[in-house]
């Protein structure tokens, strides 16, 4: 059974001609971390708002754990947790009070609330500040508190809207570690435009652009399928670089070359074949090099290739 399913999900805002979300069809398996990628304004937040029942779709339907989503479905909201782009909670409450309040909304018993709140405060690293008011929390602490409150009701699906976009490197690391620790406990649907975050923790990736789903696959498969690796060659002299350039022209080494100073950035068409032939090619033409390094494909390459 799928955790999240959408069928031709479309959203057209009032006063706008073009859809913000255009026939989005998506299926996400249970208990994985799903990265929802796209440039700003691609439709990521709109998708999340519809999936969290904060907004109605203009057309199409969406299901969480097989249950149809609409803004009046209260039972559905017991299945989900949500961290908005900028988490807002009641500043006059302390961290622990927020979690207790959320626990009461989910009709948990007092004992259950205390156990769950203590666990989440420890997991999020906020145990030391649990009795401080939310209004005194830093950005990173707020983000972790936001995830903790979203996890309080033991959701089956956790929606995180750009959870690391406003954080400094230390805050990002803390939040990513926290999200990573949730893997297996629930399905995580994380929207972001920070590619390194997705690469680090997501099992599957969906890329959206101008409201349309461009691709959806496993992270590793996507890398293999779309991105070719590349080589960086540092030459000993400019003369060696010229020799290499002339040899490439005469013997046709398939791929794309970007020359800069005394080095070249080479993206071969067939990486498996060229990986073996490149060294032979260099030695055959007696070209002196200081460095030859093969770099793996990155998500950035795929993203740029698909989104432009």
């Amino acid at each position, binding site marked *: 059974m799928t955790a999240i399913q959408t069928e031709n999900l479309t959203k057209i805002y009032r006063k706008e001609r073009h859809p913000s979300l255009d026939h989005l069809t998506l299926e996400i398996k249970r208990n994985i971390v799903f990265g929802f990628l796209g440039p700003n304004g691609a439709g990521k937040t709109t998708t999340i708002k519809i999936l969290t029942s904060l907004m109605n779709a203009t057309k199409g339907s969406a299901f969480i754990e097989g249950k149809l989503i609409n803004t009046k479905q209260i039972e559905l909201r017991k299945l989900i947790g949500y961290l*908005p782009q900028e*988490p807002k909670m*009641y500043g006059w409450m302390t961290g622990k009070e927020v979690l207790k309040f959320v626990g009461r*909304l989910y009709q948990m018993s007092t004992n259950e609330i205390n156990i769950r709140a203590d666990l989440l405060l420890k997991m999020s690293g906020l145990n030391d500040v649990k009795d401080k008011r939310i209004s005194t929390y830093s950005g990173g602490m707020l983000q972790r508190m936001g995830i903790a409150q979203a996890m309080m009701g033991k959701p089956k699906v956790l929606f995180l809207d750009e959870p690391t976009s406003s954080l400094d490197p230390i805050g990002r690391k803390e939040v990513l570690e926290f999200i990573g620790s949730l893997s297996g406990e629930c399905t995580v649907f994380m929207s972001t435009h920070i590619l390194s975050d997705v690469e680090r923790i997501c099992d599957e990736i969906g890329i959206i652009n101008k409201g349309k789903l461009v691709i959806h696959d496993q992270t590793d498969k996507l890398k293999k399928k779309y991105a070719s690796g590349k080589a960086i060659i540092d030459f000993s002299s400019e003369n060696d670089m010229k020799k290499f350039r002339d040899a490439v022209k005469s013997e046709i080494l398939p791929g794309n070359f970007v020359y800069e100073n005394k080095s070249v950035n080479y993206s071969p068409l067939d990486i498996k074949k060229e990986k073996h032939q490149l060294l032979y090619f260099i030695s055959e033409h007696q070209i002196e090099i200081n460095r030859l390094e093969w770099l793996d494909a990155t998500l950035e390459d795929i993203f740029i290739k698909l989104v432009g």
Partner: protein
Amino acid sequence: MLPWKIYLLSLSVKKTPMKALLLKELQENLKTGRFWILLIIFSFFAIMSPLTARYMPEIFASMSKQQGIEIKIPDPTWLDAISQYVKNISQLCTFVVILIYVGIVVKEKENGTAVFLLVKPVKRSSFIISKFIIAMMILFLIFTVSFSLSGFYTYLFFDSLPLIKFTVVNLLLLLNTVVVLSITIMFSAISKTQVVAAIFSFIAWLFLGLMVQFGDFGKFSPSSLISETLNIVKSEVVSIKPFIGAAFVIVLSGIISIFALKNWEA
């Protein structure tokens, strides 16, 4: 720390989203100072009203003496104290109630806490109803304090107070304030910003006041409750029309508030 009664309440009640919302509203009113501001302002006017009535002749006498004019004012009675009290509560204090409660819904929509709450298993109607119930409870409590303070000082200065009449006067004033409160909550639920909500709430309040002038129809205006207080004090017949108007405005405002929030998209 919370007052011990709230703590006990939180332990004893069976956990339902509505009870959690009620408790949160109560705590919010206490911790953000809404309750205390209202209490101080209402208490101030509750004490000042009999005080002003009692010393008004002396104040006028000293003013007229300075200007060389002689003005004779009859000795004040408890009726003057109650009239002053009615005027202050129905005008200045109602104005403060609008200012205090105008952000009750729209502020949560503006700053994102409504999203935090409405994505949880909470009925949108419960969100509005909990706010209304707690605000009403707080007004009731504050009116009880004002009634006690004003009653005490009126008796102290004038040696007389018709307790039952004064109680009924306070209940009418409370009903009038609840009408204004429900209109304020309605505009708070409809509007996108606090300023817009405040402007419309004040316009609606002024309209109800002006409606009193519209002949027979005007008698249904909840603002007529203020003039009914005078009939009570004078033991004259009280019209039921403003009560019908008040009930109609409260129910209609409640329905519109819930409808607006149910259709609100984050």
